[in-house]
């Protein structure tokens, strides 16, 4: 899948909860760089990581991720 096809609201959800990239990375047990590349749409996370991110941010995967050809 092309990374540009997947949009996300990871940054806004993270900031809304007052978390840094490093904080979120610690919560989902990945590196800060992984969070950064997902936020910047360089890397497409697996379903498992998407679910872990959603759980850590107290939201749903559908809220966090969307296809860019859909209206967000």
């Amino acid at each position: 899948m092309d990374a540009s096809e997947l949009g996300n609201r990871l940054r806004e959800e993270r900031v809304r909860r007052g978390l840094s990239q490093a904080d979120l990375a610690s919560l989902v047990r990945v590196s800060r760089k992984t969070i950064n590349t997902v936020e910047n749409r360089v890397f497409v996370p697996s379903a498992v990581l998407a679910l872990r991110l959603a759980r850590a941010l107290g939201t749903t995967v559908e809220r966090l991720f969307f296809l860019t050809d859909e209206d967000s």
Partner: protein
Amino acid sequence: MNPVPKNDDLNQHVARIEDRTTRILISSGAMFALWQIGYLMLFMPRDGAPRRVDIVAGIAFVAWSGALLMLLATGGGAFRARAVREILDDELARSQRARAYQNAFWVMILVTLAAYAAAQFVHLDARLLAHATLSTGVLVAVATVAFLRRR
């Protein structure tokens, strides 16, 4: 084995290891590439029995290739605590490594095909072919990971 850092420090610790590993991959990969020039000029297989220096150079080449591949495979996390190793081997790292191995595979196939075609017309030494295939494979894998980590 190094102790596990506290949770807050864990990511900083991992980031330092990642940065250091990337720097080592870039510098060591560049030196490895440069070294090939000297190797091919000085230690190329020639007629007669190999000199001792040729054997030493061959062993050094294999050891260096192995060290670079080990660094790629572990992300610099060998002999680290399990928690550190897990983060160093997270989804992004595995994806980058998979891309590196994929690129290396195709380049090695191309080198082998080129060698096969050339061997129809000229005699090619087996050691030279093995050297060229391994060198390009290692270099492409290292360069791919270094590039992806810098994005």
